[in-house]
């Protein structure tokens, strides 16, 4: 590397009019161009971010709708309105017997000790039968020659313990309260035992003013639990329930319900920041019809 010679250095310093640089016009033009490019870049980035945010919200809203729809379908289709599974029917709330387990007697019930034994191999459900939380419906077969006198009786579950069924298969011994000896004596081996918990599903508003699909359950000893948010946020009219009878007409009588129409309106979670940045509120809705599978057939 050689340093500039003195003659070269003094030549350039002595001639400022010919020094390279920007004119004011060039500067303004370049600033304007840079501004335009910057604005386009920022605008593109903001709209991408807004698109991203809205897509996220849409995904969340639709996911909530699917979860809520699945919940209602799985909770309602196993009910028997004529048998008393719908307890209180409201436009945005429903108290019902939520089926949690289906098992079958493997021994003749002990009518005096008020216990019945079910086989675990043929036990199906969301969870096992729990004492203090569940009640059971037991099918009674009074006269095996006719089906007309079959009946179901319900009782609270007071205890659950391991037991052994015939042929050494594992079972559960369920202590029940409130069944008469006569009732238990008519429950034969193989009779279905359906465990349920009384549940309330409703549109519920939390302390922050956000609406949710909330559930609470009834425990015989302690009453209603607090409402637990399950799906949300929903809009202020986020849950609408309509009850239809066999003719397809709306009915207010719980025992006449054949089908339940459920409309769920979910809202997006608003991010912090000004509205102009993220766009308007997002909401979406779904409507389902759930036919009750266990209604009496004749």
């Amino acid at each position: 590397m050689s340093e500039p010679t003195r003659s070269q250095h003094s030549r350039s310093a002595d001639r400022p009019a010919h020094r390279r640089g920007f004119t004011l016009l060039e500067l303004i033009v370049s600033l304007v161009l840079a501004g335009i490019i910057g604005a386009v870049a920022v605008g593109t980035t903001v709209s991408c971010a807004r698109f991203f945010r809205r897509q996220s919200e849409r995904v969340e809203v639709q996911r909530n709708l699917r979860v809520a729809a699945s919940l209602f379908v799985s909770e309602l289709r196993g009910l028997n309105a004529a048998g008393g599974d719908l307890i209180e029917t409201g436009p945005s709330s429903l108290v019902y017997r939520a089926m949690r387990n289906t098992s079958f007697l493997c021994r003749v019930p002990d009518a005096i000790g008020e216990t019945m034994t079910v086989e675990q191999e043929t036990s199906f459900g969301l969870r096992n039968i729990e004492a203090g939380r569940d009640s059971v419906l037991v099918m009674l077969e009074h006269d095996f020659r006719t089906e007309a006198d079959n009946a179901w009786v319900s009782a609270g579950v007071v205890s659950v313990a391991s037991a052994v069924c015939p042929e050494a298969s594992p079972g559960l011994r369920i202590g029940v309260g409130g069944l008469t000896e006569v009732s238990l004596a008519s429950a034969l081996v193989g009779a279905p035992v359906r465990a349920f918990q009384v549940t309330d599903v409703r549109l519920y508003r939390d302390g922050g003013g956000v609406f949710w699909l909330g559930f609470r359950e009834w425990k015989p000893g302690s009453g209603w639990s607090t409402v637990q948010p399950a799906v949300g946020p929903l809009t202020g009219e986020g849950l609408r329930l309509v009850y239809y009878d066999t003719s397809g007409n709306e009915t207010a009588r719980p025992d006449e319900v054949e089908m339940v129409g459920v409309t769920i309106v979910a809202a997006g979670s608003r991010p912090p920041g000004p509205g102009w940045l993220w766009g308007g509120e997002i909401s979406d809705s779904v409507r389902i019809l759930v036919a009750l599978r266990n209604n009496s057939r004749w």
Partner: protein
Amino acid sequence: MGRASTVLQNSEQGAALVLAVICLLCVGVLVGTAALLGLAERRGGQSFVGIQQAHGVAEAGAYNALRAWDPVEYSQWVSGSSRRFTGITPGQGIPYSGEVRRLSSLLYLITAEGTDTRHLSRQRIGVVARLYALEVEPKAAVTMRGPLSIGSDAVVVGNDLDPMGWDCPGEGGLVAALRLPPKDSIQSLEILCPPASCVVGAPQIYADSSLTLDTLTTLDGLSLDQLRDLAWVVVPGGLVRPTPRASNATCVTAASDNWGDPYGAARPCGRYHPLVYVTGDLEIRGGTGQGVLIVDGDLAVSDGFTFVGLVVVRGAFQSSGVGNRIDGALIVANTELTPISIAGASVVQYSSCGLHTALIASARAGLLREWGWFQAY
């Protein structure tokens, strides 16, 4: 001047490239994430649809198993017996599988599992099926119309007894020995044996004005023609000697003259109680059977024929010879009002045990009236 200009251009190019790359990266990350979210959303939606589809397939499987009920096989099971089944849904051809299990003398459990078209979701449901037997209460050992003659060695008993070697809790009471329309110009009765000991029941004779050809040829709302569609064995008539048949310890149910083994509960055909429909006149010489026997014609039995269950005859009935025995009930519609004869050393013994065992064994299966459906998870 040329070199300075080149240096300046190089600097500008570098800044633009970096800026462009940063912008593209930002946009790329946002677009990529949005695309991933969209993909996840699509999968979530497909999963939801798949679950509903799998549920529908499982339900179709369970109801198909109920529709394709095999009373011949299933009625012979003891409690706890089970069999797997597979199939495909009509139309889309989605496979399902499941199991039928006997829970008790009346109840069966059907569980079925289905998948969606992509085999990504599985659902399982269960239904409880109940046997719906014909509700027939003859209220007498012999129910019939037309002229009747009971021979000197014949016995008609309304005492409710279990068939020999059977152990089921019968009613243990008394029903009528004979249930007949009130006496008139057509209805007549001749008892040649000592009436007090050979026609036993409470009452001995139940005069029932409701007995008509129609009521005697209708069982639980089904005509005899409709019952033919439910029959397991259809016999054209003629001469028959029913005999239990087994091969390799299995009851040969395909044999039309195998009507079960009423006195061999532990033998292969001991639990086989067929619904037999005979399309013409039938003559039975000896042999044995159990179940429900419907004869769309005349029936003549002789030479020690024994049967446990319900016998329904549209035409006339004759018994002769030694050792004929029916434990259950006999209904004779007697369309032509032909003189009927229960002669020889023949016994018609009312047995609610024999009657209802036969009716339940030959019953149709259907979904339990209430709470017969459940999500099996």
